[in-house]
């Protein structure tokens, strides 16, 4: 029961809450931004599990590329669910 263990579990709970918020939001643009925040949280969890390689990939793909892809897709379709 170290401090690192507590922080890691708190980050996992935070990730779960962010994903629930992203599902429940009715405005899809807000949902995409919350999903980017969840991706950053997952990056910190990967880094704490001593996988910096996966953390870099998750940060670049999850927060960078997928967010812009979703925003372009929303601009092509409707914003409200």
């Amino acid at each position, binding site marked *: 029961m170290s401090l690192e263990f507590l922080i890691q579990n708190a980050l996992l709970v935070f990730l779960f809450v962010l994903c629930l918020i992203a599902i429940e939001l009715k405005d899809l643009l807000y949902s995409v931004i919350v999903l980017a925040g969840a991706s950053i949280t997952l990056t910190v969890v990967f880094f704490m599990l001593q996988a910096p390689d996966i953390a*870099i*990939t998750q940060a*670049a*793909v999850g927060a*960078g*590329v997928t967010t812009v*892809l979703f925003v*372009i*897709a929303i601009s092509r379709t409707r914003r409200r669910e």
Partner: protein
Amino acid sequence: MAGMTVIVRTIARLLFPFTFLFGAYIVIHGHLTPGGGFPGGVIIAASIVMLILAYGIERAQKKVGFLHAEVLESVGGIAIVILGLFGLLLGISFLQNVFPLGELGQLFSAGNLPLLYLGVGVKVTAGIILIFYAMLFAFRGEEE
């Protein structure tokens, strides 16, 4: 996409060289530090996509066109296959190392691994730019 305001354009223009340099560093040091061809290629592609979104699709297409990206992706794939065939031609298995290994921790070491990362980086960069162009051009005919 017609481009954005002056603030977004200035920030994108100032941030572009640093993002590009970081991606190139991750690709070139792929065999020494965490990272490699895929994350570095994604970061380079993100820097170029940032410019595309800030300056509008028409001005970006004069710099990096659809055909440029397609040719670059094929060049990356061919580089990976040729590197693999080097090992096969010398009588050992596919992608086996045939170059001198060098000293541990140096930039020019690890045989064919840095060249392989360069090929993967070029292929991933061009591929992600192609995905964005495809997304932006997908419904062009219906709008006009």
